Protein backbone atom coordinates (compact mmCIF):
# COMPACT_ATOMS: atom_id res chain seq x y z
CA UNK A 1 0.00 0.00 0.00
CA UNK A 2 2.58 2.58 1.04
CA UNK A 3 4.85 1.34 -1.74
CA UNK A 4 2.05 1.98 -4.16
CA UNK A 5 1.55 5.49 -2.85
CA UNK A 6 5.26 6.19 -3.02
CA UNK A 7 5.41 4.96 -6.59
CA UNK A 8 2.50 7.17 -7.61
CA UNK A 9 4.01 10.16 -5.85
CA UNK A 10 7.33 9.59 -7.60
CA UNK A 11 5.61 9.39 -10.99
CA UNK A 12 3.68 12.54 -10.22
CA UNK A 13 6.83 14.29 -9.11
CA UNK A 14 8.54 13.45 -12.41
CA UNK A 15 5.51 14.66 -14.36
CA UNK A 16 5.31 17.92 -12.42
CA UNK A 17 9.04 18.58 -12.73
CA UNK A 18 8.85 17.92 -16.46
CA UNK A 19 5.90 20.25 -16.87
CA UNK A 20 7.62 22.92 -14.83
CA UNK A 21 10.86 22.66 -16.78
CA UNK A 22 9.16 22.93 -20.14
CA UNK A 23 7.07 25.81 -18.86
CA UNK A 24 10.12 27.59 -17.50
CA UNK A 25 11.94 27.65 -20.81
CA UNK A 26 8.93 28.06 -23.09
CA UNK A 27 7.74 31.10 -21.15
CA UNK A 28 11.08 32.77 -21.42
CA UNK A 29 10.95 32.36 -25.18
CA UNK A 30 8.15 34.91 -25.14
CA UNK A 31 10.33 37.68 -23.79
CA UNK A 32 10.23 39.26 -20.37
CA UNK A 33 7.97 41.69 -18.52
CA UNK A 34 10.26 44.74 -18.57
CA UNK A 35 8.62 46.40 -21.58
CA UNK A 36 5.26 46.04 -19.89
CA UNK A 37 6.54 47.55 -16.66
CA UNK A 38 8.07 50.74 -18.00
CA UNK A 39 5.95 53.78 -18.86
CA UNK A 40 5.73 55.13 -22.40
CA UNK A 41 8.95 56.73 -23.53
CA UNK A 42 11.36 54.90 -21.21
CA UNK A 43 14.93 54.96 -22.50
CA UNK A 44 16.80 51.84 -23.55
CA UNK A 45 19.17 52.32 -20.64
CA UNK A 46 16.35 52.30 -18.09
CA UNK A 47 14.86 49.22 -19.64
CA UNK A 48 18.22 47.49 -19.38
CA UNK A 49 18.59 48.52 -15.72
CA UNK A 50 15.22 47.10 -14.85
CA UNK A 51 15.98 43.91 -16.74
CA UNK A 52 19.18 43.45 -14.76
CA UNK A 53 17.45 44.06 -11.46
CA UNK A 54 14.87 41.37 -12.27
CA UNK A 55 17.68 38.95 -13.10
CA UNK A 56 16.99 38.55 -16.82
CA UNK A 57 20.57 39.33 -17.76
CA UNK A 58 21.67 35.96 -16.35
CA UNK A 59 21.98 32.98 -18.68
CA UNK A 60 18.81 30.89 -18.82
CA UNK A 61 20.28 27.82 -17.15
CA UNK A 62 21.48 29.94 -14.23
CA UNK A 63 17.97 31.37 -13.81
CA UNK A 64 16.59 27.84 -13.95
CA UNK A 65 18.98 26.48 -11.35
CA UNK A 66 18.26 29.42 -9.09
CA UNK A 67 14.57 28.76 -9.42
CA UNK A 68 15.00 25.07 -8.57
CA UNK A 69 17.17 26.00 -5.63
CA UNK A 70 14.44 28.28 -4.33
CA UNK A 71 11.83 25.63 -4.95
CA UNK A 72 13.76 23.12 -2.87
CA UNK A 73 13.33 25.50 0.08
CA UNK A 74 9.65 26.04 -0.80
CA UNK A 75 10.44 29.51 -2.11
CA UNK A 76 8.25 30.28 -5.10
CA UNK A 77 9.97 33.57 -5.83
CA UNK A 78 8.69 37.12 -6.07
CA UNK A 79 6.08 38.47 -8.44
CA UNK A 80 7.74 40.75 -11.00
CA UNK A 81 4.67 42.91 -11.31
CA UNK A 82 3.41 43.19 -7.76
CA UNK A 83 6.73 42.91 -5.94
CA UNK A 84 5.40 40.59 -3.24
CA UNK A 85 6.19 36.92 -2.57
CA UNK A 86 4.29 34.54 -4.84
CA UNK A 87 3.19 32.58 -1.76
CA UNK A 88 1.18 35.58 -0.55
CA UNK A 89 -0.66 35.82 -3.84
CA UNK A 90 -1.25 32.08 -4.06
CA UNK A 91 -2.53 31.72 -0.51
CA UNK A 92 -4.95 34.60 -0.80
CA UNK A 93 -6.31 33.28 -4.10
CA UNK A 94 -6.41 29.57 -3.34
CA UNK A 95 -9.47 29.66 -1.07
CA UNK A 96 -11.51 31.22 -3.88
CA UNK A 97 -10.46 28.48 -6.27
CA UNK A 98 -11.43 25.87 -3.69
CA UNK A 99 -14.79 27.53 -3.13
CA UNK A 100 -15.54 27.68 -6.83
CA UNK A 101 -14.38 24.12 -7.47
CA UNK A 102 -16.42 22.87 -4.55
CA UNK A 103 -19.48 24.77 -5.75
CA UNK A 104 -19.18 23.46 -9.29
CA UNK A 105 -18.46 19.93 -8.09
CA UNK A 106 -21.38 19.95 -5.68
CA UNK A 107 -23.70 21.12 -8.38
CA UNK A 108 -22.51 18.74 -11.07
CA UNK A 109 -22.46 15.69 -8.79
CA UNK A 110 -25.59 16.66 -6.92
CA UNK A 111 -27.57 17.14 -10.10
CA UNK A 112 -25.58 15.01 -12.55
CA UNK A 113 -25.70 11.67 -10.74
CA UNK A 114 -29.45 11.60 -10.08
CA UNK A 115 -30.10 12.66 -13.67
CA UNK A 116 -27.83 9.89 -14.93
CA UNK A 117 -29.41 7.22 -12.72
CA UNK A 118 -32.86 8.35 -13.75
CA UNK A 119 -31.86 8.25 -17.40
CA UNK A 120 -30.64 4.67 -17.01
CA UNK A 121 -33.70 3.48 -15.16
CA UNK A 122 -36.10 5.15 -17.57
CA UNK A 123 -34.16 4.14 -20.62
CA UNK A 124 -36.11 4.57 -23.83
CA UNK A 125 -38.87 6.64 -22.25
CA UNK A 126 -39.91 10.18 -22.92
CA UNK A 127 -38.43 11.26 -19.59
CA UNK A 128 -35.01 10.09 -20.70
CA UNK A 129 -35.26 12.21 -23.84
CA UNK A 130 -36.10 15.29 -21.80
CA UNK A 131 -33.28 14.73 -19.34
CA UNK A 132 -30.94 14.10 -22.23
CA UNK A 133 -32.02 17.36 -23.78
CA UNK A 134 -31.24 19.22 -20.56
CA UNK A 135 -27.81 17.63 -20.26
CA UNK A 136 -26.91 18.23 -23.88
CA UNK A 137 -28.03 21.84 -23.74
CA UNK A 138 -25.75 22.56 -20.82
CA UNK A 139 -22.92 20.92 -22.65
CA UNK A 140 -23.29 22.68 -25.99
CA UNK A 141 -22.79 26.28 -24.93
CA UNK A 142 -19.45 28.02 -24.47
CA UNK A 143 -18.97 28.79 -20.78
CA UNK A 144 -18.53 32.49 -21.35
CA UNK A 145 -21.78 32.72 -23.26
CA UNK A 146 -23.95 30.90 -20.74
CA UNK A 147 -22.24 33.02 -18.08
CA UNK A 148 -23.15 36.27 -19.81
CA UNK A 149 -26.71 35.17 -20.40
CA UNK A 150 -26.98 34.41 -16.69
CA UNK A 151 -25.51 37.79 -15.70
CA UNK A 152 -27.95 39.61 -17.96
CA UNK A 153 -30.94 37.62 -16.76
CA UNK A 154 -30.35 37.09 -13.06
CA UNK A 155 -28.25 40.13 -12.18
CA UNK A 156 -29.19 42.94 -14.55
CA UNK A 157 -32.84 42.27 -15.31
CA UNK A 158 -34.18 40.26 -12.38
CA UNK A 159 -31.67 41.65 -9.87
CA UNK A 160 -31.68 38.41 -7.88
CA UNK A 161 -27.95 37.77 -7.82
CA UNK A 162 -24.84 39.97 -7.71
CA UNK A 163 -23.28 40.50 -11.14
CA UNK A 164 -19.72 39.85 -10.01
CA UNK A 165 -17.46 39.65 -7.02
CA UNK A 166 -16.71 37.24 -4.25
CA UNK A 167 -18.17 38.79 -1.14
CA UNK A 168 -21.12 36.49 -0.52
CA UNK A 169 -22.25 32.92 -1.11
CA UNK A 170 -24.86 34.27 -3.51
CA UNK A 171 -22.03 35.53 -5.70
CA UNK A 172 -20.72 31.97 -5.88
CA UNK A 173 -23.90 30.65 -7.42
CA UNK A 174 -23.64 31.83 -11.03
CA UNK A 175 -19.94 31.02 -11.50
CA UNK A 176 -20.55 27.55 -10.06
CA UNK A 177 -23.41 26.89 -12.44
CA UNK A 178 -21.49 28.21 -15.44
CA UNK A 179 -18.53 26.06 -14.52
CA UNK A 180 -20.51 23.01 -13.44
CA UNK A 181 -22.68 22.65 -16.56
CA UNK A 182 -20.03 20.84 -18.60
CA UNK A 183 -19.06 18.55 -15.75
CA UNK A 184 -22.69 17.85 -15.00
CA UNK A 185 -23.08 16.28 -18.42
CA UNK A 186 -20.06 14.06 -17.84
CA UNK A 187 -21.37 12.83 -14.49
CA UNK A 188 -24.82 12.16 -15.85
CA UNK A 189 -23.33 10.12 -18.64
CA UNK A 190 -21.01 8.16 -16.37
CA UNK A 191 -23.76 7.43 -13.90
CA UNK A 192 -26.04 6.32 -16.69
CA UNK A 193 -23.45 3.99 -18.20
CA UNK A 194 -22.48 2.57 -14.83
CA UNK A 195 -26.06 1.86 -13.83
CA UNK A 196 -26.93 0.34 -17.21
CA UNK A 197 -23.82 -1.78 -16.90
CA UNK A 198 -24.85 -3.09 -13.52
CA UNK A 199 -28.49 -3.57 -14.48
CA UNK A 200 -27.37 -6.03 -17.14
CA UNK A 201 -25.46 -8.16 -14.66
CA UNK A 202 -26.72 -11.49 -13.44
CA UNK A 203 -27.03 -10.62 -9.78
CA UNK A 204 -29.38 -7.74 -10.48
CA UNK A 205 -31.44 -9.84 -12.82
CA UNK A 206 -31.59 -12.57 -10.17
CA UNK A 207 -32.56 -10.12 -7.48
CA UNK A 208 -35.23 -8.58 -9.67
CA UNK A 209 -36.53 -12.01 -10.61
CA UNK A 210 -36.80 -12.75 -6.91
CA UNK A 211 -39.01 -9.73 -6.57
CA UNK A 212 -36.64 -7.42 -4.69
CA UNK A 213 -37.88 -3.87 -5.38
CA UNK A 214 -35.71 -1.96 -7.83
CA UNK A 215 -35.22 0.87 -5.36
CA UNK A 216 -33.55 -1.43 -2.85
CA UNK A 217 -31.33 -2.95 -5.49
CA UNK A 218 -30.19 0.48 -6.52
CA UNK A 219 -29.30 1.55 -3.06
CA UNK A 220 -27.70 -1.65 -1.91
CA UNK A 221 -25.76 -2.77 -4.95
CA UNK A 222 -25.74 -0.25 -7.69
CA UNK A 223 -24.54 2.64 -5.60
CA UNK A 224 -21.54 0.69 -4.41
CA UNK A 225 -20.64 -0.89 -7.73
CA UNK A 226 -21.10 2.25 -9.76
CA UNK A 227 -19.02 4.29 -7.37
CA UNK A 228 -15.71 3.34 -8.95
CA UNK A 229 -16.21 4.90 -12.38
CA UNK A 230 -17.79 7.93 -10.75
CA UNK A 231 -14.80 8.42 -8.47
CA UNK A 232 -12.43 8.03 -11.41
CA UNK A 233 -14.24 10.68 -13.36
CA UNK A 234 -14.53 13.00 -10.37
CA UNK A 235 -10.76 12.93 -9.93
CA UNK A 236 -10.20 13.71 -13.59
CA UNK A 237 -12.87 16.40 -13.74
CA UNK A 238 -11.39 18.40 -10.88
CA UNK A 239 -8.41 19.27 -13.01
CA UNK A 240 -10.75 20.07 -15.91
CA UNK A 241 -12.61 22.44 -13.62
CA UNK A 242 -9.39 24.33 -13.01
CA UNK A 243 -9.09 24.87 -16.76
CA UNK A 244 -12.67 25.99 -17.22
CA UNK A 245 -12.22 28.31 -14.26
CA UNK A 246 -9.88 30.44 -16.35
CA UNK A 247 -12.83 31.79 -18.31
CA UNK A 248 -15.45 31.78 -15.57
CA UNK A 249 -13.18 33.59 -13.14
CA UNK A 250 -12.33 36.27 -15.69
CA UNK A 251 -15.98 36.81 -16.54
CA UNK A 252 -17.32 36.94 -12.98
CA UNK A 253 -14.26 38.72 -11.53
CA UNK A 254 -13.83 35.74 -9.23
CA UNK A 255 -10.32 36.06 -7.75
CA UNK A 256 -9.17 32.45 -8.12
CA UNK A 257 -6.03 30.89 -9.53
CA UNK A 258 -7.37 30.65 -13.09
CA UNK A 259 -7.80 34.41 -13.33
CA UNK A 260 -4.41 35.15 -11.83
CA UNK A 261 -2.79 32.63 -14.18
CA UNK A 262 -4.16 34.24 -17.33
CA UNK A 263 -3.21 37.69 -16.12
CA UNK A 264 0.25 36.48 -15.17
CA UNK A 265 0.77 34.92 -18.59
CA UNK A 266 -0.18 38.20 -20.23
CA UNK A 267 2.01 40.17 -17.85
CA UNK A 268 4.92 37.73 -18.20
CA UNK A 269 4.92 37.28 -14.45
CA UNK A 270 6.62 33.89 -14.76
CA UNK A 271 6.91 32.88 -11.09
CA UNK A 272 3.15 33.11 -10.69
CA UNK A 273 2.42 31.00 -13.75
CA UNK A 274 4.88 28.38 -12.55
CA UNK A 275 3.30 28.38 -9.11
CA UNK A 276 -0.19 27.92 -10.55
CA UNK A 277 1.01 24.96 -12.60
CA UNK A 278 2.69 23.49 -9.53
CA UNK A 279 -0.49 23.87 -7.52
CA UNK A 280 -2.53 22.40 -10.37
CA UNK A 281 -0.20 19.41 -10.62
CA UNK A 282 -0.31 18.88 -6.87
CA UNK A 283 -4.09 19.08 -6.93
CA UNK A 284 -4.45 16.53 -9.71
CA UNK A 285 -2.02 14.16 -7.99
CA UNK A 286 -3.86 14.53 -4.73
CA UNK A 287 -7.24 13.91 -6.34
CA UNK A 288 -6.02 10.81 -8.11
CA UNK A 289 -4.44 9.47 -4.93
CA UNK A 290 -7.61 10.05 -2.98
CA UNK A 291 -9.53 8.35 -5.77
CA UNK A 292 -7.20 5.34 -5.58
CA UNK A 293 -7.63 5.12 -1.83
CA UNK A 294 -11.40 5.44 -2.18
CA UNK A 295 -11.44 2.49 -4.57
CA UNK A 296 -10.07 0.39 -1.74
CA UNK A 297 -12.74 1.64 0.64
CA UNK A 298 -15.59 1.16 -1.78
CA UNK A 299 -14.47 -2.20 -3.02
CA UNK A 300 -12.24 -4.11 -0.59
CA UNK A 301 -11.29 -6.56 -3.32
CA UNK A 302 -9.03 -3.96 -4.90
CA UNK A 303 -5.69 -4.22 -3.18
CA UNK A 304 -3.02 -1.79 -4.13
CA UNK A 305 -0.45 -4.25 -5.30
CA UNK A 306 0.75 -2.57 -8.41
CA UNK A 307 -1.77 0.06 -9.28
CA UNK A 308 -5.42 0.16 -9.99
CA UNK A 309 -5.35 2.04 -13.24
CA UNK A 310 -8.68 1.60 -14.86
Amino acid at each position, binding site marked *: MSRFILKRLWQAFIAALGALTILFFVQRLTGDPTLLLVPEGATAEDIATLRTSLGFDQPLYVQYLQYLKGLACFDLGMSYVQGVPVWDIMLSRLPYTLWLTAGAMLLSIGAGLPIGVLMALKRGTFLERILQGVVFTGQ*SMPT*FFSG*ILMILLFAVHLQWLPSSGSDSLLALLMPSVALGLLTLATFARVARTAV*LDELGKDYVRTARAKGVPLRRIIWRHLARNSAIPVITVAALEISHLLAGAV*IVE*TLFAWPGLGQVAVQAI*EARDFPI*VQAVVLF*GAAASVLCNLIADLLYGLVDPRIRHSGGAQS
Partner: protein
Amino acid sequence: MSMPAPLPQEDLRPRPSFGAVLRSAAASVPPYLWIFIAILLGFIAMALFAPLLAPNDPTSQNLLGRMKAPGSVIRGVTYIFGSDELGRDVLSRIIYGARASMSVAVLSVCLSGAIGILAGLLAAYCRGWVESAVMRLVDMMLSIPALLFAVITVAVIGPGFINVILVLGLTRWTRYARVVYGQALGLMPQPYVRYARFVGTRPLAIMCRHLLPNVFGQVVVVATLEFGSMVLFEAGLSFLGLGVQPPTPSWGAMMNVGRHYLDTAWWIAGFPGLCLFLLVLSVNIIGDHLRDRLDPRLR
Protein backbone atom coordinates in the same frame (compact mmCIF):
# COMPACT_ATOMS: atom_id res chain seq x y z
CA MET B 1 -26.93 -12.36 -0.40
CA SER B 2 -24.89 -10.87 -3.16
CA MET B 3 -22.89 -12.60 -5.78
CA PRO B 4 -19.42 -11.24 -6.39
CA ALA B 5 -19.43 -9.27 -9.60
CA PRO B 6 -16.99 -10.72 -12.13
CA LEU B 7 -13.71 -8.85 -12.34
CA PRO B 8 -13.46 -6.68 -15.45
CA GLN B 9 -12.31 -8.76 -18.36
CA GLU B 10 -10.97 -7.78 -21.73
CA ASP B 11 -13.26 -8.61 -24.59
CA LEU B 12 -11.41 -11.33 -26.49
CA ARG B 13 -13.39 -11.24 -29.73
CA PRO B 14 -11.76 -9.33 -32.56
CA ARG B 15 -13.80 -6.20 -33.13
CA PRO B 16 -15.87 -5.88 -36.30
CA SER B 17 -14.28 -3.74 -38.98
CA PHE B 18 -15.00 -0.05 -39.12
CA GLY B 19 -17.01 -0.27 -42.33
CA ALA B 20 -19.21 -2.98 -40.92
CA VAL B 21 -19.80 -0.91 -37.84
CA LEU B 22 -20.84 2.07 -39.93
CA ARG B 23 -23.23 0.01 -42.01
CA SER B 24 -24.86 -1.55 -39.02
CA ALA B 25 -25.03 1.84 -37.33
CA ALA B 26 -26.74 3.46 -40.30
CA ALA B 27 -29.29 0.68 -40.43
CA SER B 28 -30.36 1.30 -36.89
CA VAL B 29 -30.48 5.07 -36.72
CA PRO B 30 -33.54 6.12 -34.73
CA PRO B 31 -35.72 8.66 -36.51
CA TYR B 32 -34.96 11.59 -34.16
CA LEU B 33 -31.27 11.23 -34.90
CA TRP B 34 -31.80 12.00 -38.58
CA ILE B 35 -32.72 15.55 -37.59
CA PHE B 36 -29.32 16.07 -36.02
CA ILE B 37 -27.53 14.34 -38.86
CA ALA B 38 -29.35 16.70 -41.23
CA ILE B 39 -28.30 19.72 -39.18
CA LEU B 40 -24.69 18.57 -39.19
CA LEU B 41 -24.75 17.93 -42.94
CA GLY B 42 -26.35 21.33 -43.42
CA PHE B 43 -23.51 23.04 -41.59
CA ILE B 44 -20.95 21.04 -43.54
CA ALA B 45 -22.58 22.11 -46.79
CA MET B 46 -22.59 25.69 -45.53
CA ALA B 47 -18.88 25.53 -44.88
CA LEU B 48 -18.09 23.92 -48.22
CA PHE B 49 -20.22 26.17 -50.40
CA ALA B 50 -19.89 29.40 -48.42
CA PRO B 51 -19.01 31.59 -51.45
CA LEU B 52 -22.11 30.37 -53.30
CA LEU B 53 -24.46 30.69 -50.35
CA ALA B 54 -23.40 33.97 -48.76
CA PRO B 55 -25.50 36.89 -50.00
CA ASN B 56 -22.76 39.45 -49.25
CA ASP B 57 -19.05 39.79 -48.71
CA PRO B 58 -18.47 38.76 -45.08
CA THR B 59 -15.71 41.33 -44.51
CA SER B 60 -17.16 44.33 -46.30
CA GLN B 61 -17.90 47.05 -43.75
CA ASN B 62 -20.32 49.90 -43.62
CA LEU B 63 -19.62 52.16 -40.67
CA LEU B 64 -22.86 54.05 -41.18
CA GLY B 65 -24.92 50.87 -41.23
CA ARG B 66 -23.81 49.38 -37.96
CA MET B 67 -25.94 47.21 -35.70
CA LYS B 68 -29.03 47.35 -37.90
CA ALA B 69 -31.79 44.94 -36.95
CA PRO B 70 -32.47 41.74 -38.94
CA GLY B 71 -34.31 42.48 -42.14
CA SER B 72 -32.92 45.99 -42.55
CA VAL B 73 -32.21 47.22 -46.03
CA ILE B 74 -29.16 49.42 -46.39
CA ARG B 75 -28.11 50.80 -49.76
CA GLY B 76 -30.22 48.22 -51.52
CA VAL B 77 -28.78 45.25 -49.65
CA THR B 78 -31.01 43.26 -47.34
CA TYR B 79 -29.39 42.19 -44.09
CA ILE B 80 -31.47 39.13 -43.23
CA PHE B 81 -29.76 38.52 -39.88
CA GLY B 82 -28.91 42.18 -39.34
CA SER B 83 -25.52 43.88 -39.42
CA ASP B 84 -22.74 43.71 -36.87
CA GLU B 85 -20.65 46.28 -35.00
CA LEU B 86 -18.81 47.22 -38.19
CA GLY B 87 -21.84 47.08 -40.45
CA ARG B 88 -21.02 43.69 -41.92
CA ASP B 89 -23.70 41.19 -42.91
CA VAL B 90 -24.20 38.79 -40.00
CA LEU B 91 -25.69 36.07 -42.18
CA SER B 92 -22.75 36.06 -44.58
CA ARG B 93 -20.36 36.04 -41.66
CA ILE B 94 -22.14 33.07 -40.13
CA ILE B 95 -21.92 31.17 -43.41
CA TYR B 96 -18.22 31.90 -43.76
CA GLY B 97 -17.77 31.42 -40.03
CA ALA B 98 -18.92 27.83 -40.42
CA ARG B 99 -15.74 27.32 -42.43
CA ALA B 100 -13.37 28.59 -39.75
CA SER B 101 -15.18 27.04 -36.81
CA MET B 102 -15.60 23.64 -38.41
CA SER B 103 -12.20 23.39 -40.03
CA VAL B 104 -10.51 24.34 -36.77
CA ALA B 105 -12.45 21.58 -35.07
CA VAL B 106 -11.93 18.97 -37.79
CA LEU B 107 -8.24 19.65 -38.26
CA SER B 108 -7.44 19.78 -34.57
CA VAL B 109 -9.36 16.56 -34.00
CA CYS B 110 -7.31 14.96 -36.79
CA LEU B 111 -4.05 16.28 -35.38
CA SER B 112 -4.72 15.33 -31.79
CA GLY B 113 -6.16 11.99 -32.94
CA ALA B 114 -3.06 11.21 -34.96
CA ILE B 115 -0.71 12.11 -32.12
CA GLY B 116 -2.81 10.25 -29.58
CA ILE B 117 -3.17 7.09 -31.68
CA LEU B 118 0.53 6.99 -32.42
CA ALA B 119 1.47 7.51 -28.78
CA GLY B 120 -1.05 4.96 -27.55
CA LEU B 121 -0.04 2.30 -30.07
CA LEU B 122 3.66 2.82 -29.45
CA ALA B 123 3.19 2.58 -25.70
CA ALA B 124 1.13 -0.58 -25.95
CA TYR B 125 3.35 -2.24 -28.54
CA CYS B 126 6.81 -1.37 -27.31
CA ARG B 127 6.14 -1.43 -23.55
CA GLY B 128 9.27 -0.78 -21.48
CA TRP B 129 10.67 2.72 -21.48
CA VAL B 130 8.53 3.90 -24.37
CA GLU B 131 5.46 3.00 -22.38
CA SER B 132 6.60 4.84 -19.27
CA ALA B 133 7.74 7.84 -21.33
CA VAL B 134 4.35 8.13 -23.02
CA MET B 135 2.45 7.61 -19.80
CA ARG B 136 4.52 10.23 -17.95
CA LEU B 137 3.95 12.62 -20.83
CA VAL B 138 0.22 12.00 -20.53
CA ASP B 139 0.42 12.61 -16.77
CA MET B 140 2.30 15.80 -17.45
CA MET B 141 -0.25 17.09 -19.92
CA LEU B 142 -3.08 16.23 -17.58
CA SER B 143 -1.43 18.07 -14.71
CA ILE B 144 -1.49 21.35 -16.63
CA PRO B 145 -5.00 22.70 -17.12
CA ALA B 146 -5.62 22.46 -20.87
CA LEU B 147 -6.72 26.05 -21.36
CA LEU B 148 -3.70 27.39 -19.47
CA PHE B 149 -1.43 25.33 -21.64
CA ALA B 150 -3.20 26.70 -24.69
CA VAL B 151 -2.87 30.29 -23.50
CA ILE B 152 0.84 29.88 -22.84
CA THR B 153 1.41 28.25 -26.21
CA VAL B 154 -0.49 30.97 -28.02
CA ALA B 155 1.64 33.54 -26.19
CA VAL B 156 4.70 31.84 -27.65
CA ILE B 157 3.62 31.18 -31.23
CA GLY B 158 0.99 33.89 -31.55
CA PRO B 159 -2.69 33.48 -32.36
CA GLY B 160 -4.11 32.68 -35.77
CA PHE B 161 -5.93 29.92 -37.63
CA ILE B 162 -3.05 27.44 -38.01
CA ASN B 163 -1.69 28.13 -34.55
CA VAL B 164 -5.05 27.53 -32.89
CA ILE B 165 -5.20 24.14 -34.60
CA LEU B 166 -1.65 23.36 -33.48
CA VAL B 167 -2.41 24.36 -29.92
CA LEU B 168 -5.61 22.33 -29.74
CA GLY B 169 -3.90 19.35 -31.36
CA LEU B 170 -1.03 19.46 -28.94
CA THR B 171 -3.22 19.82 -25.84
CA ARG B 172 -5.95 17.32 -26.50
CA TRP B 173 -4.18 14.16 -27.69
CA THR B 174 -4.00 12.54 -24.24
CA ARG B 175 -7.56 11.28 -24.34
CA TYR B 176 -6.95 9.32 -27.54
CA ALA B 177 -3.65 8.04 -26.22
CA ARG B 178 -5.30 6.63 -23.11
CA VAL B 179 -8.14 4.97 -24.98
CA VAL B 180 -5.89 3.50 -27.68
CA TYR B 181 -3.31 2.37 -25.14
CA GLY B 182 -5.89 0.62 -22.98
CA GLN B 183 -7.52 -1.12 -25.93
CA ALA B 184 -4.31 -2.06 -27.70
CA LEU B 185 -2.82 -3.45 -24.52
CA GLY B 186 -5.72 -5.87 -24.37
CA LEU B 187 -5.13 -6.91 -27.97
CA MET B 188 -1.44 -7.67 -27.58
CA PRO B 189 -1.86 -11.20 -26.18
CA GLN B 190 -4.37 -12.07 -28.92
CA PRO B 191 -3.38 -15.09 -31.03
CA TYR B 192 -3.33 -13.17 -34.30
CA VAL B 193 -1.08 -10.48 -32.90
CA ARG B 194 1.23 -13.02 -31.36
CA TYR B 195 1.32 -14.93 -34.62
CA ALA B 196 2.16 -11.81 -36.58
CA ARG B 197 5.01 -11.02 -34.24
CA PHE B 198 6.17 -14.63 -34.39
CA VAL B 199 6.45 -14.69 -38.17
CA GLY B 200 8.39 -11.41 -38.08
CA THR B 201 5.86 -8.93 -39.42
CA ARG B 202 7.25 -5.42 -39.09
CA PRO B 203 6.01 -3.54 -35.98
CA LEU B 204 4.51 -0.78 -38.09
CA ALA B 205 2.54 -3.29 -40.12
CA ILE B 206 1.26 -5.00 -36.98
CA MET B 207 0.17 -1.68 -35.56
CA CYS B 208 -1.58 -0.59 -38.73
CA ARG B 209 -3.05 -3.90 -39.77
CA HIS B 210 -3.91 -5.62 -36.53
CA LEU B 211 -4.12 -3.10 -33.75
CA LEU B 212 -5.45 0.04 -35.39
CA PRO B 213 -8.56 -1.40 -37.04
CA ASN B 214 -9.62 -2.91 -33.76
CA VAL B 215 -9.34 0.29 -31.75
CA PHE B 216 -10.70 2.54 -34.45
CA GLY B 217 -14.31 2.32 -33.35
CA GLN B 218 -13.39 3.67 -29.94
CA VAL B 219 -11.30 6.39 -31.53
CA VAL B 220 -14.25 7.50 -33.64
CA VAL B 221 -16.38 7.83 -30.55
CA VAL B 222 -13.77 9.91 -28.77
CA ALA B 223 -13.23 12.00 -31.90
CA THR B 224 -16.92 12.85 -32.30
CA LEU B 225 -17.17 13.96 -28.71
CA GLU B 226 -13.90 15.86 -28.96
CA PHE B 227 -15.21 17.67 -32.02
CA GLY B 228 -17.80 19.42 -29.90
CA SER B 229 -15.22 20.28 -27.25
CA MET B 230 -12.95 21.73 -29.92
CA VAL B 231 -15.65 24.05 -31.22
CA LEU B 232 -16.25 25.23 -27.65
CA PHE B 233 -12.53 25.46 -26.99
CA GLU B 234 -12.02 27.73 -29.99
CA ALA B 235 -14.82 29.92 -28.69
CA GLY B 236 -13.13 29.99 -25.28
CA LEU B 237 -9.85 31.06 -26.85
CA SER B 238 -11.75 33.77 -28.70
CA PHE B 239 -13.09 35.02 -25.37
CA LEU B 240 -9.50 35.49 -24.27
CA GLY B 241 -8.73 37.19 -27.60
CA LEU B 242 -6.58 34.30 -28.77
CA GLY B 243 -8.80 32.48 -31.26
CA VAL B 244 -9.08 32.79 -35.04
CA GLN B 245 -8.10 36.34 -35.89
CA PRO B 246 -10.15 39.07 -37.53
CA PRO B 247 -11.26 39.79 -40.14
CA THR B 248 -11.72 36.03 -40.70
CA PRO B 249 -15.12 35.31 -39.18
CA SER B 250 -15.53 32.44 -36.74
CA TRP B 251 -18.58 31.77 -34.61
CA GLY B 252 -16.61 31.92 -31.39
CA ALA B 253 -15.11 35.29 -32.29
CA MET B 254 -18.50 36.65 -33.40
CA MET B 255 -20.06 35.59 -30.10
CA ASN B 256 -17.22 37.11 -28.15
CA VAL B 257 -17.55 40.49 -29.80
CA GLY B 258 -21.32 40.35 -29.88
CA ARG B 259 -21.71 39.53 -26.20
CA HIS B 260 -21.29 43.22 -25.38
CA TYR B 261 -24.28 44.02 -27.56
CA LEU B 262 -26.72 41.46 -26.19
CA ASP B 263 -28.91 44.24 -24.83
CA THR B 264 -28.68 46.58 -27.80
CA ALA B 265 -28.14 44.29 -30.80
CA TRP B 266 -28.78 40.69 -29.74
CA TRP B 267 -28.45 39.33 -33.28
CA ILE B 268 -24.70 39.88 -33.47
CA ALA B 269 -24.02 37.17 -30.90
CA GLY B 270 -27.42 35.50 -30.94
CA PHE B 271 -27.34 33.92 -34.39
CA PRO B 272 -23.77 32.60 -34.28
CA GLY B 273 -24.51 31.39 -30.75
CA LEU B 274 -27.52 29.48 -31.99
CA CYS B 275 -25.52 27.93 -34.83
CA LEU B 276 -22.68 26.93 -32.54
CA PHE B 277 -25.15 25.48 -30.09
CA LEU B 278 -26.91 23.45 -32.78
CA LEU B 279 -23.64 22.20 -34.21
CA VAL B 280 -22.22 21.06 -30.88
CA LEU B 281 -25.57 19.63 -29.87
CA SER B 282 -25.89 17.58 -33.06
CA VAL B 283 -22.37 16.28 -32.89
CA ASN B 284 -22.70 15.37 -29.24
CA ILE B 285 -25.98 13.56 -29.76
CA ILE B 286 -24.59 11.68 -32.73
CA GLY B 287 -21.45 10.87 -30.74
CA ASP B 288 -23.52 9.68 -27.83
CA HIS B 289 -25.48 7.42 -30.10
CA LEU B 290 -22.29 6.05 -31.64
CA ARG B 291 -20.89 5.33 -28.22
CA ASP B 292 -23.97 3.45 -27.18
CA ARG B 293 -23.73 1.42 -30.37
CA LEU B 294 -20.02 0.77 -30.26
CA ASP B 295 -19.61 0.10 -26.57
CA PRO B 296 -20.03 -3.68 -26.38
CA ARG B 297 -21.02 -3.60 -22.75
CA LEU B 298 -24.17 -1.67 -23.47
CA ARG B 299 -25.58 -3.88 -26.18
